């Protein structure tokens, strides 16, 4: 293919080099500096996609990121990216792109039948049609998603790298057009730390497609001068290919920098594909320009019909025009320069202006360039067959509601329209800024800012369309003294005639022709009127019902037209209709950019105990407990989990086992008021605890609900060692700090987390002491170190703290050594234990052994709604203490009532059946749910130690204490119905003798 639409000269492209690329399987050529859009235009490719709902053929509308139609599937395989805008893809050699939403091919798309059936696809179609029967919704959704799809998500892992960076500029300038460049230059000269971002690959914005002069030089030369000066300033950062996508509270803004997109998927491994910038800016200047809005005329969505400013940009930036015979349709003066510039390049231009007269300069310029002008006229139809053939033009009535007279057919191969300009207020709007309606240019511009997001808007995004004033406003916002850059003052828009819907030869919405205001979601003026007739008055409701502005482009070209259409049909002013709210992101951003470097091993921190590596070396199977990796069980060859856990459980009860308990939360408490604090934190009394003694305690929140438990030991006079659950360590420390800092600041207590400072090894079983004695010369006999005692000893030559506390109900020693000795002491214990057939056990066995004793795990057997009474632990609640946290709540009417769920044991009728945890206990079995539920299973295991091996369970059941001995029913999720007997939750050594041995 040759580039037939490429002009012989002009544009900011490098004609000395030719790039080759593929679109829908065909090969084309372009030049460095092209976008995919401009290269396709150069090759005469106008059909780029099918529309969302009606599958109508669509081509380019715009030249920038506001493009609604030309959504492209870029690249293939792991690198593929759906829904990219052809106008934002810089061309590189070997680029591979496909159109979207068509089947079997772009040219012959079967979904186009939707267009023939369009009278059955009105606004709110999905809401009206797919409401019932409800059971079919899943089927409907499947079909809808396939028919109305956009691109295809990648199915392979993303091979690219992404990163996040932070910066705190004093001045953040968004947009590098004339206003933004003036602001950045001014800020730099005033000595500020400036960041300037622009989504284009080069600076200049609208100046790239203009013939203006600034400070006596050509606009492009002025841009080059500013670029060079900014590069000299050490405190200025200029980021091109960077889209400011979100503006949040307190001037926190995020931007996506496309680092390697223009190099293609084979770019350097040293560079991230995208970089997400997070700015916290002292001041923000928005210089985001304005976006042209199309006129809403009959069949205005046909391929080959663009925005007038886009045609100008294609000509001046890329040296390409969409055709040889161009029709320009406008309601203001700005499109005249499009007509004049195109005519100067040798294109036959017809200008259709809905006004009777334009500005003097505009008219004179057009006439001099040989443009045919048709004043007071409107396009009333478009003839399209594999390309634009002609447009119909008729005279427009004075009130703009009718067209009259003969139809003039104007042959053409391309067209464009201008319905006025919408300042790009998106970021201002994201920043909760208000908008004001400009009566002269019929558009919304920024008004007051929110106090938390101070910024200024300058230039066209402030509704100021003259170049000179844009330069002035930007310069003033930057803060420099000295004269601003100046340009000749040119009136760019002139007197705009609002014409929200262009009439045609049949009533709009009632004939074959469609008037689109919303291209990406396929919504027409008639859809808006239908929504209005059905009672949707609020613009926010209308937006959702018609899906106007809800596509990936967020209605950049459609929203103001929609509001104008509603205002004119309701006979009210535009401000009375109201505006919808722009929300982040300005343009879609990838999940990769959001995630940044936080993936794989950097996604989530992993905590390992000092003994972790030994466990890994010895075949431990790990489980995640919070951030911790904990050894769950140690299978021998041929063992599954059940077999390993049975062996470990039996060995602990009959001999001795060793368990790594290092993850247990540990808090060091020092100070003269610790005892007082413990009395407030725990439900039981702590005053009498002697040095060298341990005590178990329950902590309640002020609701009276159990939220943690553990053992605290008095190490010295004013020095205590508190343990918490593994998952509750941070929560308990925070709880202590909260009360000490906010309620009891006069109490003298220091609380310090020492969880990671101690390695904890638990020796459990009748022969535990024998193993310990092999490693120490200190006296650890039952007299010297009785149950609930504490002693500091030398163990294998290492200073160790030994606690006689037990989570298994067996004779037990919890040995704490400084973390750096953890693995050494562990290995010494393993060696000493060999003579006693010691088993190494994991968390699963620990769970079974504690359940055999009816010991709760807070968070498993309790859930934040359980009081000590509910857990049958009244014995640990002091009746004598005047106060403790949660005390008063225990006598509230609700916590003291009958019928609360209470912790009991369950024995299933079939001893081999391990009840599923979470299984419901019901008061009455019925044929089908719902059945009245009275409780659920909280813990359930197979115990090799109870009755020679059987299942046991803990459960919470309404009025459970009184049901002991009763049988209850459990309908299981797999359909089985089973029975279980309510029993006491202590299954082993009910007298509690073994722990004291």
């Amino acid at each position, binding site marked *: 293919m040759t580039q037939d639409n490429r002009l012989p000269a002009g544009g900011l492209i490098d004609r000395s080099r030719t790039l080759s690329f593929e679109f829908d399987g065909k090969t084309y050529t372009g030049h460095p500096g092209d976008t995919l859009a401009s290269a396709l235009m150069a090759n005469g490719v106008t059909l780029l996609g099918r529309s969302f709902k009606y599958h109508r053929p669509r081509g380019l509308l715009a030249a920038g990121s506001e493009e609604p139609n030309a959504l492209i599937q870029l690249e293939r395989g792991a690198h593929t990216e759906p829904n990219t805008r052809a106008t934002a893809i810089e061309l590189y050699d070997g680029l591979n792109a496909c159109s979207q939403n068509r089947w079997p091919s772009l040219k012959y798309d079967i979904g186009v039948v939707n267009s023939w059936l369009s009278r059955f696809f009105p606004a709110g179609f999905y809401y009206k049609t797919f409401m019932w029967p409800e059971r079919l919704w899943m089927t409907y959704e499947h079909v809808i998603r396939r028919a109305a799809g956009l691109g295809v998500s990648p199915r392979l892992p993303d091979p690219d790298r992404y990163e996040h960076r932070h910066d705190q500029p004093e001045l953040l300038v968004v947009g590098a057009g004339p206003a933004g460049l003036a602001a950045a230059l001014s800020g730099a000269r005033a000595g500020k730390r400036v960041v300037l971002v622009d989504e284009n690959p080069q600076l200049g914005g609208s100046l790239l497609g203009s013939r203006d002069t600034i400070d006596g030089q050509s606009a492009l030369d002025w841009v080059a001068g500013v670029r060079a000066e900014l590069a000299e300033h050490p405190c200025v950062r200029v980021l091109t290919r960077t889209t400011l996508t979100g503006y949040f509270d307190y001037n926190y803004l995020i931007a996506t920098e496309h680092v390697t997109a223009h190099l293609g998927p084979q770019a350097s491994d040293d560079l991230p594909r995208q970089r997400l910038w997070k700015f916290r800016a002292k001041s923000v200047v928005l210089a985001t320009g304005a976006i042209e809005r199309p006129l809403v005329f009959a069949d205005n969505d046909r391929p080959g019909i663009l925005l007038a400013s886009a045609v100008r940009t294609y000509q001046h930036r890329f040296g390409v025009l969409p055709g040889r015979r161009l029709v320009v349709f406008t309601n203001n003066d700005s499109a005249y320069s499009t007509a004049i510039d195109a005519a100067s390049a040798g294109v036959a231009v017809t200008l259709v202006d809905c006004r009777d007269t334009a500005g003097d300069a505009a008219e004179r310029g057009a006439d001099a360039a040989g443009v045919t002008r048709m004043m007071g006229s409107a396009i009333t139809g478009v003839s399209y067959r594999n390309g634009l053939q002609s447009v119909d033009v008729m005279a427009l009535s004075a009130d703009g509601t009718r067209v009259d007279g003969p139809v003039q057919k104007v042959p053409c191969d391309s067209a464009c329209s201008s319905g006025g300009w919408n300042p790009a207020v998106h970021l201002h709007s994201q920043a909760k800024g208000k908008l004001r309606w400009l009566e002269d240019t019929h558009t919304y511009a920024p008004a007051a800012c929110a106090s938390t997001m101070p910024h200024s808007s300058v230039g066209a995004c402030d509704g100021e369309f003259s170049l000179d004033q844009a330069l002035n406003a930007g310069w003033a916002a930057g803060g420099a003294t000295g004269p601003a850059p100046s340009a000749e003052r040119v009136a760019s828009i002139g007197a705009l005639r609002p014409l929200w819907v262009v009439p045609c030869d049949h009533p709009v919405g009632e004939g074959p022709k469609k008037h689109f205001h919303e291209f990406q979601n396929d919504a027409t003026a008639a859809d808006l009127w239908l929504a209005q007739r059905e009672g949707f008055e609020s613009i926010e409701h209308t937006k959702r019902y018609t899906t106007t502005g809800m596509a990936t482009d967020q209605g950049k070209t459609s929203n103001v037209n929609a509001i104008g259409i509603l205002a004119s049909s309701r006979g009210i002013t535009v401000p009375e209709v109201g505006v919808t709210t722009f929300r982040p992101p300005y343009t879609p951003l990838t999940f990769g950019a959001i995630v940044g470097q936080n993936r794989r091993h950097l996604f989530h921190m992993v905590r390992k105990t000092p003994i972790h590596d030994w466990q890994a070396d010895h075949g431990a199977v790990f489980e995640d407990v919070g951030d911790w990796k904990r050894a769950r069980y140690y299978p021998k060859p041929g063992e599954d989990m059940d077999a390993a856990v049975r062996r470990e459980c039996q060995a602990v009860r009959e001999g001795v086992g060793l368990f790594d308990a290092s993850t247990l939360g540990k808090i060091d408490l020092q100070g003269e008021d610790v005892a007082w604090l413990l009395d407030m934190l725990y439900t039981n009394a702590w005053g009498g605890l002697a040095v060298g003694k341990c005590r178990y305690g329950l902590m309640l929140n002020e609701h009276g609900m159990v939220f943690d438990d553990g053992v605290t030991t008095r190490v010295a006079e004013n020095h205590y060692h508190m343990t918490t659950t593994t998952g509750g360590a941070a929560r308990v420390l925070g709880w202590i700090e909260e009360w000490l800092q906010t309620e009891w600041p006069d109490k003298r207590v220091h609380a310090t987390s020492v969880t990671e400072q101690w390695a904890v090894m638990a020796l459990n079983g009748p022969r535990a002491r024998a193993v310990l004695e092999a490693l120490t010369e200190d006296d650890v006999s039952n007299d010297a170190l009785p149950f609930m005692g504490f002693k500091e000893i030398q163990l294998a030559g290492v200073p160790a703290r030994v606690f006689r506390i037990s989570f298994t109900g067996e004779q037990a020693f919890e040995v704490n050594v400084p973390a750096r000795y953890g693995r050494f002491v562990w290995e010494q214990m393993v060696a000493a234990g060999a003579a006693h057939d010691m088993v190494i056990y994991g968390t699963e066995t620990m769970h079974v052994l504690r359940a055999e004793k009816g010991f709760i795990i807070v968070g498993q057997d309790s859930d934040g709604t359980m009081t000590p009474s509910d857990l049958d632990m009244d014995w640990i609640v002091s009746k004598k203490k005047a106060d403790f946290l949660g005390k008063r709540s225990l006598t509230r*009417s609700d916590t003291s009532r009958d019928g609360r769920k209470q912790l009991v044991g369950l024995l299933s009728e079939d001893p081999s059946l391990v009840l599923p945890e979470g299984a419901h206990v019901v008061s009455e079995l019925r044929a089908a749910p719902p059945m009245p539920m009275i409780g659920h299973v909280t813990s359930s295991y197979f115990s090799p130690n109870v009755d020679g091996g059987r299942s046991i369970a803990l459960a919470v059941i309404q009025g459970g204490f009184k049901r002991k001995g009763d049988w209850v029913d459990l309908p299981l999720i797999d359909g089985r119905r089973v029975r279980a007997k309510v029993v006491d939750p202590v299954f082993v050594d009910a007298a509690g003798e073994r722990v004291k041995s």
Partner: protein
Amino acid sequence: MFLISCPWCGERDQTEFHCHGEAHIARPENSLEMDDAAWGDYVFFRKNVKGVHLERWTHDHGCGRWFNAARNTATDEFLAFYKPGEAPPADLERVS
């Protein structure tokens, strides 16, 4: 994302902090003499103001200290940051 001035550390990102709801709720000293309604008010009921809200924050990923803030819930504007035990600035209501 808020920019929060910790009274001990200065301005930091919101990600370093955690909000703990309404401030200046003293724990009753005579809880055993309170009826269920009065105790329930302390435990469960909180203001839900549109306007200036006095609330508790912690600088979790920083100094770990608790402090109070006055924030306009309608605009998310912070009007003051102050230490526990200090009274809120007197003229806050006018600011909103």
